[in-house]
């Protein structure tokens, strides 16, 4: 195989990311301390520079194509989730600029970029080897990012916990991959799918076993039960913008992989794993929402809420239909914008208030009405209120469940949304109705953060109102799988 130019062209975004990472490294060396905030802009700008050509010139055609010996597949699923990863990283870079000390370290942006690169490869990968390498490329920078505030014990704990959990989960997942390879001698999931249609393999208990083992790794990435234990501690200790990144881009990429591997490689067994995922989804939603009720720390609350949202999105995966995949993709689009906004507000306010306790949010609406408004939008969207993105997303997911005859699952989802509404509103109550002694001290929001939040609010509103283009993307992603 000689390298043909089109193969290079399809990984051009990834190559550009590597170049960007190099630029960031050099800038970190060249710039003085006070200038190093600029790197955040360079990162965000660079990611935008990658997004724009991707959006306009590198749209996948109607026929998905395989490149690099079948290791990657250029289709709408990878396209949509790639955009999500890049967008999430760009916003995170802007939000991270204001973060004390580490916001001025070039390494933060470098790790962020490489992690994004990992996600971008992850959502394209159709070969188990490449998939595993990509998942590691995503995770390892995230471990370092979570523990980057080395002076804070919580951050170190967060990084360590994430590392240990992550290493364990990916080891188990890799074992599952190796079992699949051992059974079939294949690592390409499309080739595996063909093999599994043969009768002798299809009833093998080995197959179920390895599917479950692989699921362990994936549920870890999307923080679904029972692999969700890491999320609250990691989110709480990690720098807030990074926690936002962890809960959005990383999770979205995890969902993309979950969809691709399970729907492509094991479509024959969709009833079985669909039921398993429906159960996981129920447990995840319920655990996330129930425990979120008792949280005093906003980051922990958002962590549990993010677990619950993984549960909602899993409904769409478990129905294993085109509508289901569409709803998952749409859910991730809406969730990414919403949760980034929520973590953005927490990052800004937490830096000024010096605390992430929910009680410290008292009087926030008087100190900065705009910030409170953004929080309102984000939290209502998380709760699934119209006219925000979260509402439409939830509607699609529940519709997919009803369409597939899983009415009980939809009911569980709706009930859970009601619980969710309660704790989101509790926070908003503190923000708007409670008072504190420094009510009168106005907050200043830096231009960069303001810009990022503004962008996210617009996105949330757009996703919630003008939903046709996003829906089309999501539907095409589902069809092209």
């Amino acid at each position, binding site marked *: 195989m000689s390298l043909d130019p089109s193969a290079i062209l399809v990984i051009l975004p990834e190559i550009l990311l590597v170049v960007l990472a190099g630029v960031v490294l050099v800038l970190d060396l060249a710039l003085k301390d006070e200038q190093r905030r600029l790197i955040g802009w360079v990162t965000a700008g660079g990611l935008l520079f990658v997004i724009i050509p991707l959006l306009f010139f590198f749209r996948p055609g109607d026929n998905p194509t395989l490149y690099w010996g079948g*290791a990657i597949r250029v289709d709408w699923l990878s396209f949509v989730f790639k955009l999500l990863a890049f967008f999430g990283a760009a916003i995170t870079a802007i939000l991270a600029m204001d973060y004390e000390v580490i916001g001025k370290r070039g*390494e933060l942006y470098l790790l962020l970029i490489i992690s994004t690169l*990992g996600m971008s490869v992850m959502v394209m990968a159709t070969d188990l080897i490449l998939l595993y390498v990509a998942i590691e490329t995503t995770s390892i920078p995230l471990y370092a990012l979570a523990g980057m505030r080395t002076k804070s014990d919580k951050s170190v704990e967060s990084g360590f916990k994430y590392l240990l959990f992550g290493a364990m989960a990916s080891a188990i997942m890799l074992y599952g991959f190796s079992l699949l390879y051992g059974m079939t001698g294949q690592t390409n999931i499309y080739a595996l799918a063909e093999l599994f249609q043969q009768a002798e*393999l299809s009833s093998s208990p080995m197959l179920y076993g390895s599917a479950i083992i692989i699921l362990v790794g994936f549920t870890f990435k999307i923080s679904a039960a029972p692999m969700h234990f890491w999320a609250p501690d990691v989110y709480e200790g990690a720098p807030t913008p990074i926690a936002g990144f962890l809960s959005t881009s990383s999770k979205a990429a995890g969902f993309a992989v979950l969809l691709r591997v399970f729907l492509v490689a094991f479509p024959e067994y969709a009833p079985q794993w669909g039921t398993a995922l429906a159960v996981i989804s129920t447990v995840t939603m319920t655990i996330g929402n129930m425990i979120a009720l008792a949280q005093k720390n906003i980051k922990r609350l958002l962590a549990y809420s993010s677990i619950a949202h993984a549960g909602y999105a899993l409904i769409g995966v478990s129905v294993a239909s085109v509508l289901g995949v569409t709803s998952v993709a749409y859910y991730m689009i809406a969730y990414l914008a919403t949760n980034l906004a929520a973590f953005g507000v927490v990052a800004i306010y937490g830096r000024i208030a010096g605390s992430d306790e929910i009680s410290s949010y008292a009087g926030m609406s008087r100190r900065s009405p705009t910030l409170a408004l953004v929080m309102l939008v984000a939290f209502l969207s998380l709760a699934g209120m119209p006219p925000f993105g979260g509402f439409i997303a939830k509607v699609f997911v529940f519709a997919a469940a009803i369409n597939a005859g899983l009415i009980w699952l939809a009911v569980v989802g709706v009930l859970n949304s009601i619980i969710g509404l309660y704790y989101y509103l509790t926070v908003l109550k503190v923000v708007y109705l409670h008072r504190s002694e420094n009510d009168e001290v106005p907050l200043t929001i830096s231009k960069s953060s303001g810009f990022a939040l503004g962008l996210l609010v617009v996105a949330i509103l757009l996703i919630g109102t003008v939903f046709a283009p996003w829906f089309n993307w999501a539907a095409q992603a589902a069809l092209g799988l």
Partner: protein
Amino acid sequence: MIPDIVLFIILALVAVASAVGMLFSKNAIYSALNLILNFSSVAVLYLILGAPFIALAQVTVYAGAIMVLFLFVIMLLGAERLRRSETLPYQQPVSIILAAILAVVAIYALLFRPLGIEAASVANPDFSSPAAMAEMLFNEYLLPFEVTSILLLVAMIGAIVLTRKRQRRVQR
């Protein structure tokens, strides 16, 4: 054929014994040494299978480089004496049950071959020559290979970020 099987059984016993020894050693240095022995015996197994390249890479990378670093860190920290780590009360029974299940499944798979897989197919004797490996690595698996290089780089950067004290800017 017979010498191969005898050799295999001996090596397998060594590998298993050293793995068990690694787990139960009270001294971290002995654990590390057992692991080295384990890696080496696995390397010889590769050699029997006709994969000298992988065997020697295993020795160089695992038994050589990585385990030297392990020993280095253990010695540098003076962490030879392993303390009995605290375990949750249910850990031991659960682990025993799970191990038993695994053993049963493995034996079942071995005896009944539920997958209908007979003997492993004989690979092309040239499959693991350096040239064949390179051919494979740099054609079919070029992309994973390159991504791995980035992965290793970023792992290194991550480790440095987390451990280095940051002073140089002040002095300049």
